[in-house]
């Protein structure tokens, strides 16, 4: 069991031992490249699996089979769809701002790779062990707002522009409660480092200590990801496909990959900060526990998407500024009081 738990660390050590000095610059560089490739593989694999999973869950909630033609029970459908997307004509609208139009999908595709790099997948298994992990994660993921605005503006389409406007309003508003909800955890652990936060949850996950923060995090996270019921940015009944309206082929596919990658990244953050990351009973290796927790959160998000209607834009703003923000500040206050009382009782 111990071997299985440390499987990836053993492999990493083996690769390092190929070098004369296991901690030379070249060895570190090689490990960085390998880590990067692993993160890319995680993003692409996650997108491939999640797209199909979403369609299966959609079928399940609405009482129909979902994709069931290609491969065993339709599991090859996404691959076929991806191949089809690659064969599509790449259209750039005549009036588009070509540079911005083309760079937007690339930006959104890069973000999940950058954010997933600081997540600890198991004991000592963070590709980059960053002391400002949470801070870095939120900073990077807020760039996605920019990508949406670029796509919306660059397309030179009114629907895209409306979608881009909605993206700014929504994502900027929800970032604040999202970050504030994690501050309670940071106050308890006194660290921004995700590895330290997971270590601190050895006995009890923070969802028990911070239930309100977890609820705020999930709601704000859904809004941050533009998932239903907060999918106003790409609301097809109102703004057709929002910023993606003019995109075709692989560019559109990149948006799709980026979205599912972002969803994986945010679920990974939720699992790390609130559900105890790779901590779990020793019957399974840590990384298996981690991915199971991520899977549960992703399933919840998909379930919500296919059952909830879309919220209206003024209700959305109302929820962010008048409900979630005061609640998250209250949570910080309560956490501070709790820590103070704890120290007083323990005689600290």
């Amino acid at each position: 069991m111990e071997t299985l738990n440390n499987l990836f660390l053993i492999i990493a050590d083996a690769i390092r031992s190929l070098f004369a000095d296991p901690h030379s610059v070249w060895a570190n560089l090689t490990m960085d490249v390998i880590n990067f490739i692993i993160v890319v593989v995680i993003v692409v694999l996650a997108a491939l699996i999640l797209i199909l999973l979403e369609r299966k869950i959609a079928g399940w909630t609405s009482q129909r089979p979902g994709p069931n033609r290609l491969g065993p029970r339709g599991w090859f459908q996404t691959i076929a769809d991806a191949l089809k997307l690659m064969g599509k004509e790449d259209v750039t609208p005549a009036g588009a701002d070509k540079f911005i139009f083309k760079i937007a999908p690339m930006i959104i595709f890069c973000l999940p790779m950058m954010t997933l790099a600081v997540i600890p997948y198991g004991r000592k298994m963070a590709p980059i062990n960053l002391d400002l992990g949470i801070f870095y994660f939120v900073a990077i993921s807020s760039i996605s707002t920019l990508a949406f605005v670029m796509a919306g503006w660059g397309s030179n389409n009114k629907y895209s522009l409306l979608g881009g406007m909605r993206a700014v309003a929504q994502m900027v508003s929800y970032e604040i409660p999202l970050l504030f909800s994690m501050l309670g955890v940071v106050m308890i652990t006194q660290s921004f480092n995700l590895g330290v936060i997971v270590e601190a949850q050895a006995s009890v996950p923070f969802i028990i200590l911070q239930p309100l923060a977890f609820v705020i995090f999930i709601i704000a996270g859904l809004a941050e990801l533009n998932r239903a019921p907060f999918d106003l940015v790409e609301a097809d009944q109102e703004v057709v496909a929002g910023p993606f309206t003019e995109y075709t082929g692989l560019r559109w596919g990149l948006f799709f990959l980026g979205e599912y990658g972002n969803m994986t990244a945010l679920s990974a953050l939720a699992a790390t900060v609130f559900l105890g990351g790779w901590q779990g009973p020793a019957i399974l290796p840590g990384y298996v526990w981690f991915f199971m927790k991520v899977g549960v959160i992703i399933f919840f998000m998909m379930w919500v998407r296919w059952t909830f209607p879309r919220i209206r834009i003024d209700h959305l703003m109302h929820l962010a500024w008048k409900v979630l923000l005061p609640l998250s500040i209250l949570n910080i206050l309560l956490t501070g009081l709790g820590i103070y009382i704890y120290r007083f009782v323990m005689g600290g």
Partner: protein
Amino acid sequence: MSIKETEELILNMGPQHPSMHGLFRMVVHLEGETITKIEPKLGYLHRGMEKLAESRTYAQFIPYTDRLDYLASPHNNWAYVQTVEKLMGVEIPERAEYLRVIFGELARIASHQVMIASTALDMAGWSAWSYAFRDRERICDMYEMTAGSRLTVNIMRIGGMSAEPPEEFWPALKSFLDDTPEMLEEYYGIFFGNEIALGRLKNVGILSKEMAENLSITGPVLRASGVDYDVRKAEPYSIYDRFDFKVPVRTGCDSYDRTIIRMDEIVESIKIIKQAVRDIPEGPVMAKVPKVIKPPAGEVYHRVENPKGELGFYIVSDGTTKPSRVRIRPATFINLQMLPIVALGWKIQDVVAIFATLDAVLGEVDK
């Protein structure tokens, strides 16, 4: 740096737009997300039904009426054939009358289910949409058993019905009627009880009683604004005076009541069908009408309560085999008038919802 003046955003929604039912187009003037003006543009599905009727015989025009409000085609057949029967003075057999009521009310349920589904879908309630369509499928099956087709059923003839329903129709009908209350529960559970949906529908798009009357709105939209008017009660046609049913009236005047009143009507339709199934006599389903239909010269107007409102046919006959003039009074075309007035000041999202609660079928609007 000087601040430039802001401009109105003019957005063209439709005719190809995900939330436009059929080929409706509206030009929306926006201040941010708020509507300042709506210009509906109609006619993308205009096929010239009224003119087509003039070059067809009376019987040949029945399939065309299927294509008016294609979600409730038996009702359109019914309105048209009754108008011609009124002109000719034909008495139709009892059993045919009862069958017409059964199919008419089934069509009402099917049409309302589509309305519930599309209202939910316009607010991204994907599962609610497929629930309602799943249940409507059973009505389509019953159409198919009797008439052979599922959407444009063409089930009525001048003088009666096209066919007697087969043996398996009656058990299917009974099980459908028994399951319906549970279905309605499900629609509430998955969508219309949801807090977000209530926020989207309640107190949105107020159509006051006076405005509804002045715009000559009919059907569930009118009754949701507190006016108790239903052609089935106000001017009973066919055999509606024999049934015991209520006309649901709601006073909310908002999108929510316009949606929920459809569910109330489904409950009433179930009552009517149950009574019709209980009382239906044996006998022929077709009266003795001449092979070549030649109504006497004259003119006639007849109206029925379509699921969407009052559907009227005005026919002028010159004594030949073809009508000299047919005029259709479509319900949703007239109901659609309220959209530019009621939707002012609401957000784009609300306009989509308000339009959905009108339940416009463009086949009928554009004729």
